[in-house]
């Protein structure tokens, strides 16, 4: 009779399990949520109380200090200082505010416009549809960096300009996605039943079609968050985004670019912040999508 031999679990299994936990989509993405809360939400809201130093004023005497665990680093500047002596950690904390605002406002504004136009386009069809879809084509064909520069030249670099540019770029994706879904959903019998029951067009669009595209919208929005944060960074990099010296993650990556060999921490830490935020948003989005689907709820 074969005896069960108690097997030693190799040392590397535990971290692998943890990793699997992080990437397991169907489970509650606790780690991803925690990253978002501790990296984006709390710093974004409470930056003044959390940040150890002023994010804008630095001292040239303390410039280019490495992170605390490197030789020459100190606990006062845990993630080092940049080329004008500002604390990288404090700037990341304040930068979370910019990323949070840009992503939330940009996504809400563009999502609202795009979804409304997509619903109208898909539901009514015909000439309205043709018109809106041509606008979508134009919007998707715009050289967006150029448009951004034109906007900045006309309106000056500001937060609202960034939101406007993001909206011009993003609404079309929502509109196109929503329209596609609506085209298939509106052929199903429950829409016909709603019409037979005397529901108005408005009611059908918002009470019958919209709830059926919400899942897609959430997934799209969470994927767009990453895009928005990166896009805001590119705009900032070009000087068309958030005006300096406001700390924005993209701006920080851009500023550290020329010193990447000697002072890697200046761009590396904001870069990691961007990556973790975007990744976490995607994981949360996947989980939400599964969770919101009533078919998968009780499994």
């Amino acid at each position, binding site marked *: 009779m074969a005896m069960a031999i108690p097997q030693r679990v190799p040392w590397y299994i535990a971290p692998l399990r943890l990793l699997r936990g992080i990437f397991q989509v169907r489970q509650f993405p606790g780690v991803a949520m925690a990253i978002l809360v501790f990296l984006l939400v709390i710093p974004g809201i409470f930056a003044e109380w959390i940040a150890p130093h002023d994010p804008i004023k630095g001292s040239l005497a303390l410039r280019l200090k490495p992170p605390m665990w490197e030789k020459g680093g100190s606990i006062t500047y845990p993630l080092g200082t940049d080329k004008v002596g500002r604390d990288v950690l404090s700037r990341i904390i304040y930068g979370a505010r910019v990323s949070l605002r840009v992503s939330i406002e940009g996504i809400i504004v563009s999502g609202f416009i795009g979804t409304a136009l997509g619903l109208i386009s898909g539901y009514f069809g015909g000439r309205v549809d043709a018109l809106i879809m041509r606008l979508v084509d134009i919007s998707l064909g715009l050289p967006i960096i150029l448009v951004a520069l034109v906007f900045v030249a006309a309106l000056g670099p500001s937060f609202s300009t960034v939101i406007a540019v993001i909206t011009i770029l993003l609404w079309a994706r929502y509109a196109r996605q929503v329209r596609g879904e609506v085209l298939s959903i509106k052929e199903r019998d429950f829409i016909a039943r709603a*019409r037979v029951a005397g529901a108005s067009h408005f009611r059908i669009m918002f009470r019958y079609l919209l709830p059926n595209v919400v899942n897609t919208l959430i997934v799209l929005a969470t994927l767009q968050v990453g895009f928005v944060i990166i896009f805001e960074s590119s705009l900032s990099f070009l000087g068309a985004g958030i005006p300096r010296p406001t700390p924005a993650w993209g701006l920080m990556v851009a500023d550290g670019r020329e010193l990447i060999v000697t002072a890697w921490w200046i761009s590396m830490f904001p870069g990691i912040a961007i990556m973790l935020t975007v990744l976490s948003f995607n994981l949360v989005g996947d989980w939400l999508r599964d969770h919101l689907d009533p078919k998968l709820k009780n499994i």
Partner: protein
Amino acid sequence: MTRHIGDVILEVEDLHTYFFTRLGVVKAVDGVSFSLRQGETLGIVGESGCGKTMTALSLLRLVPRPGARIVQGKILLQGENLLDKSENEMRQVRGRRISMILQDPQTSLNPVFTIGNQLIEALKIHHYSHARELVQRAIGALKQVRVAAPERRVDDYPHQMSGGMKQRVVGAIAMSCEPHVIIADEPTTSLDVTIQAQYLRLLREIQEETGLSIIFITHDFGIVAKMCDRVMVMYAGRAVETGSVRDIFNHPSHPYTQALLDSVPKLEERTARLYSIEGQPPLLWNLPAGCRFASRCPYTEARCETEYPPSFSVLEGHTADCWRLQGEWQTHQSSVSKT
């Protein structure tokens, strides 16, 4: 099983619904007249594409747009002509006075809401208020269609129910606003036979309880025999024969009706091969001048090819459009206009 059949509630006169397409004018419904009494079930029978569903959608003024249009006719619901109403007034009619049960229960329910939610939604469209009352009404509606444990079932999603159960919920939604007329467009086609029988029995019971009038669209003469009081047989956009179920089964007078009845399998006869009607129905955008069934009819004469027959009265309340009836019975006076 006694049912009280009351006054005429719905009267359709000379209804024409055309599609305007590149190929020309498609005459989907071309001069259909019928009436429906309170508590009565009218069966509309015919093969695919003969205009059954278009007739039903015309009653609700929900013909596919752009493309289709109700060109001519009158739809009198309790004396009011629905074709004179504005779109807003029509919305008050839909669901509340005339309701409809669609063919496929699998897609008739919104997958993202619970069925309780959808029942309440149907009530909300017609401004029934008071949240608590709404839930009670929803549960009552489920009880009416014999859903077991309705208090628990209201929180279920459509995917947690079987096809037959879903169709009953669809029925509950259709009946929740207490309409006078329900149009059932092949409601049992996608259900299996035992569930079908159950569902039909349920519809009859509800009809006895509420005095509802039903327009039952089907292509199954078995269901007609079980469900209907009167039958209208449609062919290529026209009602070719109308009469009580008994008359139609005992004296089918139009050759098309006869052919349809011959192609129903019968228990008492052993047939090696089931009868089928030769040929195809005419193209609706290129209709013949004469009788539309002429090309497939075994009794075609010269006149059939050139002139559409008027309605001849066969018996009291039983009419058929066929020239063969002219000599045998007197011409029905209120004849339908010729095309």
